[in-house]
């Protein structure tokens, strides 16, 4: 799930669904709901925008907020993003420094209240506002970035999220702000599990039911099915056939999309789209690896020392500039001097940030970095502090083409205070993912939105075309006009989020206190009796003379006997 806020000048609501079958037998589903409108200062009326969010954003505490709730199914190669909860708050400087986390966590049923200074940081390079945001330089010290890797995403989060959609929400209210709200859901379905033996799939199979129709408030309501693979892989048919087919060329890669404009379909009951394979495929293929993918894991064994290794694979022929951001929690003390970047067996030494002359504006800085740095690398590092600050590491690198780069850093396992262990201490501790940002020169395997666009449509053409035409034309007509346009940009921004890691910190035996309590109680119980006796009863001497017993009798007999024997011996 993805929620983005931004201040904008436009006003519309779009709903889009992109379905992409992958050669490995997975189906990638991407829902995007964009609520964007221009607010007239005179009229405080908003039709689509959800009320609570209006209030939240009305406080002008943040300019842009990206909230990512992720639950991953794990193959980086699929290209889907996974794994973590992320909060990005852009503070414009005015307003309080306090982040509206409690309000947000209430809205989303997520434990955002766990976000505090101890796990959030202000990355300089990696993060920038997406969507329709004015490209003014932003001071990164107003940026907050945090992950809650332990957070579990479930329907509990989805329900409030769904409430934000204008068609589901009964509570839409007014707003004075110019806001863009982009809500997305990315899902990857495994056809082997879902399909029950067959590789065919349909909307009903994936989502349990068909489509009831478009949201009346939506300007645009489209379903796109990526049918590029129909040429190369096992052929399939769309039922019903797509009313329009469009081609998008990005960075030399052509994508063929079947487009269903739900509004124009005039759905009477339920609408369903099915993909039916004309011949039964025998084997699933391997996904062609994306231009860049990464893999992260813990190395070493035992509970003394370890290391985090991030392996970045680059399949592009040319070198790529990337930014690598680590947010390592304070309980994992890393040693900066152990940071080692080895690309294809050759070590890369990152220089200082100051070695590059950047323009003062931060955002231009990042752009510069993406575009122009060729021989420089740099790193930013702020060591963490126990219980107050995470370790922040950001490295900008130029990686050679067709390479495997290992970024490794060593850490120590530490003992926590015993109250800092979660109830399931032996489950392990999560380490949030790293973010690898790159501006890809080619659009291979790239389904994301362009940095300057808000809708899937925007990936099909140049944004200017959208802005000029989207309000006048029916989307289909629009596609028909602009499908032949080359939507190639200078680069395609991709942000990879690596796996969440789980590590086992040295964990005390939590049953020990229990044992101690048991032992102590036993001792107390045993001691109580005698103590009570001694303190409450009086001791009195007993007459010794009257003492007799079998033992004493035997003793006297024996001593008497001994005397006799000894005497005899003497004689």
């Amino acid at each position, binding site marked *: 799930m993805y929620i983005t806020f931004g201040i904008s000048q436009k006003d519309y609501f779009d709903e889009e669904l992109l379905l992409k079958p992958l050669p*490995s*037998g997975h189906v990638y589903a991407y829902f995007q709901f964009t609520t964007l409108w221009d607010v007239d200062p005179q009229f405080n009326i908003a039709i689509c925008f959800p009320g609570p969010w209006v209030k939240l954003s009305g406080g002008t505490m943040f300019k842009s907020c990206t909230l990512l709730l*992720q*639950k*991953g*199914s*794990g*193959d980086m190669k699929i290209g889907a993003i*996974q*794994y973590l909860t992320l909060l990005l708050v852009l503070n414009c400087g005015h307003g309080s420094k306090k982040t509206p986390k409690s309000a947000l966590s209430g809205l989303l049923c997520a434990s955002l209240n766990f976000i505090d200074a101890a796990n959030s940081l202000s990355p300089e390079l990696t993060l920038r506002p997406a969507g329709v945001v004015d490209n003014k330089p932003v001071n990164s010290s107003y940026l907050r970035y945090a992950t809650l890797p332990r957070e579990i995403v479930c329907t509990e989060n989805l329900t409030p999220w769904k409430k934000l959609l204008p068609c589901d929400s009964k509570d839409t209210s007014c707003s004075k702000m110019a806001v863009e709200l982009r809500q997305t859901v990315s899902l990857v379905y*495994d056809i*082997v*599990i879902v399909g029950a033996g067959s590789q065919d799939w349909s909307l009903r199979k994936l989502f349990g039911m068909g489509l009831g129709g478009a949201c009346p408030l939506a300007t645009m309501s489209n379903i796109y099915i990526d049918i590029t693979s129909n040429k190369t892989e096992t052929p399939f048919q769309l039922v019903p056939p797509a009313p329009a087919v469009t081609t998008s060329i990005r960075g030399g890669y052509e994508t063929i999309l079947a487009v269903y404009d739900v509004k124009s379909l005039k759905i009477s009951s339920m609408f369903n789209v099915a993909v039916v394979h004309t011949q039964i495929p*025998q*084997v*699933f293929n*391997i996904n062609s690896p994306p231009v860049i993918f990464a*893999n992260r*894991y*813990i*190395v*070493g*064994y*035992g509970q003394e020392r370890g*290391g985090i*290794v991030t392996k970045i694979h680059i399949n592009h022929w040319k070198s790529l500039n990337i930014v690598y951001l680590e947010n390592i929690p304070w309980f994992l003390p890393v040693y900066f001097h152990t940071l080692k970047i080895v690309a294809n067996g050759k070590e890369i030494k990152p220089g200082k940030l100051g070695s590059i002359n950047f323009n003062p504006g931060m955002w231009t800085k990042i752009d510069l970095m993406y575009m122009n740095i060729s021989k420089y690398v740099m790193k930013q590092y702020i060591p963490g502090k126990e219980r107050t600050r995470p370790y922040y590491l950001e490295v900008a690198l130029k990686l050679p083409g067709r390479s495997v780069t290992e970024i490794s850093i060593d850490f120590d396992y530490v003992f926590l205070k015993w109250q800092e262990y979660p109830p*399931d*201490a*032996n*489950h*392990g501790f*999560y380490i949030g993912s790293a973010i690898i940002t790159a501006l890809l020169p080619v659009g291979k395997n790239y389904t994301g939105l362009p940095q300057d666009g808000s809708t899937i449509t925007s990936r099909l053409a140049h944004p200017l075309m959208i802005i000029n035409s989207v309000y006048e034309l029916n989307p289909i007509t629009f596609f028909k006009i602009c499908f032949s346009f080359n939507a190639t940009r200078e680069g395609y921004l991709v942000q990879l989020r690596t*796996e*969440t*890691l*789980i*590590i*086992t910190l040295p*964990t005390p035996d939590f049953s020990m206190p229990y044992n101690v309590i048991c032992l102590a109680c036993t001792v107390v119980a045993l001691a109580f009796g005698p103590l009570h006796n001694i303190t409450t009863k009086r001791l009195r001497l007993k007459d010794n003379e009257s003492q007799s017993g079998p033992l004493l009798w035997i003793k006297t007999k024996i001593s008497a006997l001994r*005397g006799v024997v*000894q*005497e005899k*011996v*003497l004689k």
Partner: protein
Amino acid sequence: MEEGAGKQERTQVFYCEKIEIVHTLLPPHKAEITTSRTYFSENALLPGLVKGDFDEDMTAKNYQSELLEESSRYPDSVPYPWLLAKFRQLSLDVYTHNFTLNYPLGYGTKYTGKNVYAILRAPRSASTEALVLSVPYRSPSSAHPGTMPSIALMLSLAKFFRRQKYWAKDVIFLVTEHEQLGVQAWLEAYHQTTCGRSGVLDHGDMTGRGGAIQAAINLELHAEKIGHVDVKVEGLNGQLPNLDLVNLVHRMCSKEGVKHTFKNRENSNHRDPMKEWFHQLKTLMAMVTTQATGIPNGNHGLFHRFGIEAVTLEGFEKKEKGSPAVFYQLGRVMEGLFRSLNNLLERFHQSYFFYLQPTTDRYISIGMYMPPLGLLCAALLIKAFGLWLRMQKDPADSASAPAGRKGDEDILEVDKEEQSGEGDGAYSVEQQVVNFSLVPVGVAVLATHILGVALLSAPRPFTTVGLEWGGLATETSIYVGYVVAALVMILIPLLASSIGGNMESWTLLNIVALLELATLLLAVSMQNFSLALLAATIYTPPALWMTPAKNRSLSLPPPPRESNSLAILSQHTLLAINRHAPGRMTSAGTHPSHMCSLLTSSPPAHCGIRRRTVLALNPPTRYDLLFRAALNDNPPTSRPTYLLPRHLGYFPTSSLWILARPSHHRCYLLTTSLRPKPAGHRNIPPFPSTSRLPSTSSSMPSAAQNKYPVSLPLEPTGYRHTLPTDPDTRCRHRAPSYSKATAQRNQVQDWCLFVYCRFLSVFQKLLWLLLHPLLLLTIVVSIFTLITFPELPWDEVLDRSLGATKQALVFAIIDSSVYGNWVFSVATAILTPNWLIFWLVLNSKPLSCRRVKD
């Protein structure tokens, strides 16, 4: 106090040993007390809660026939294309992993291998955790029984698992090559680390990974129709999987009706408790011996180091009648196992990691088995402490001794030359001040351990030398090298004895060795209890027996203060023991008439004196002569001095045994200050009928003793001789009152004793020689060879066992450098030096002896 300490030490050591022996045997016997029924500690496992759904048994059969056909085309390697294709067909992520072994004892010899693994990505989580199902691939030419059915089952399980949506942990299907090497390389690559010596096993790189591995099951089925499944637990360095996992396997097997065993032994149901006990003991000992080697008995054993709980399920072919377990049942067992593991929220941590199992459903927890081992080690520690106390006591006591006491004691030199030569000081009590220096001790300890470290790194030089000079095979050159090293070690005492060092230094060395041994045993027991137990039972009793040759002088206490009757002043007068109660603390002479109170307080434990007739001295060879000295039962009023020349006859009524240095001809000093005997007691034998502990004797009123002076029929009457009253006449002559027969008898007895002591000494040395780690290895391997091939002629057995020993040594070295098995390292770098220190102590010739000789 010192006497008390000494006594306590002795008894404690004694009891420690006894209790240990009893205790070790106890667990299976008193099954209800020491072993407990296994139970599930981790509730999240929910074993067998869900009915099994596995129905791919036909698929498994197809896979099996396909694989058999396929493998025939690859007689020496793995049919990679087939495996990769099968996994890919199931739309799993398939990877291969290459590794290289640089043979640690060869130059440039390399072996390569390739593992295949497939990862089933869990639909319900983000690859944070993973489970492993591993199967070693064995080509048809392999010496081990094949594992094709398990690969077939694994593939069908993969197919079944792939369709399930409940996985919250990745499942990794791993097919390894080269047995344990493949698993080790895979694990090292997965964790990107090296466990053994660097540069030996090149684990290679790995592209695909799941999350942190939580548990692993290694499957080895030798046939399609399985008679029983053996559950193997023993891992590298004796590590064991969590008991919950072991229980889980047994539970799932019994749920699906698969016969399951532990150590290939089924649970017996003997009516006879003794038979039952013996059965369980055998199973237990099988586990102990396996665990003690530190070598994993299955591929599961290598996972443990990484905090991954793992077991091996080995299925043996059904040979006898009855319905076998087929893929259907086994598949359900595996399904149940993996579903339970999938349920786990936390790592295995609830149940025991340290246990012994006498049956499949009972266990002995660490709380039960550690105390006996602790007692064994405590014996060593107590002994060390006792020795230390005595070292401390001697000077302190003499210093604090009342001045008047000294006057009572006589230091009388018989030999005037000696007296003039050595001076009083040489024999005075004060001379026994602890004046050891730490330097020789430190040097000895350091030198032996440097030797140990040198031995640890010796295999490679040995190989080189053997190859270049004699063209010997690796194992022969290594073995010969270590034998030579052992011989050098055995001969070191000859060298070291010339260096000398005084008594106290040797004792200190003894203490250090004892402490080191105890620490070593305890440290080993932390990880590998079985090894520690076996080592402790082998090494502790002889080590307790070890003493430096002259240690007795140290154990000699100062004269009891209350008796003031006897002082043994020579450093060379080693031991005086009350004959009536040897081994007991005696200072019986509270009665003035008993002039011969003894000071044999607590003969040291190493003396081994248990009964009144046996005088087992350690080592007896140090004393060419054993003197028995008697005190006159008819003492003169003056202070008598008894000289005990070398060939003095016996004084059988004596209560003293005085041992002296043989080389020292004249200086056997036994002086006592005797009080005049009250008249009327002239004929009373010198000793009270029973010896009493000081406590008892002091508690008894002296009047009572006076009242009943008892003569004791100590010995045959022939021994009853009295010394002439004039001491001087006896100084240089045999007592005239001896009859010839008696003298002869005494002579014979003397020789008997001498021979006995000599024998004991030699025996002790031989025993310790046998305990040299290398020799011990040879012996153990020979015994096993003998057991395995009982019908072979002895020379064949010898030949084979020698070969096996060489192999074992080489394997131990390779294991330590590839897997990090520390048995070899510990044995060479710590145990061997420790052995050497004891050996030095055993053969020590303290300086003080030689000084006297001069």
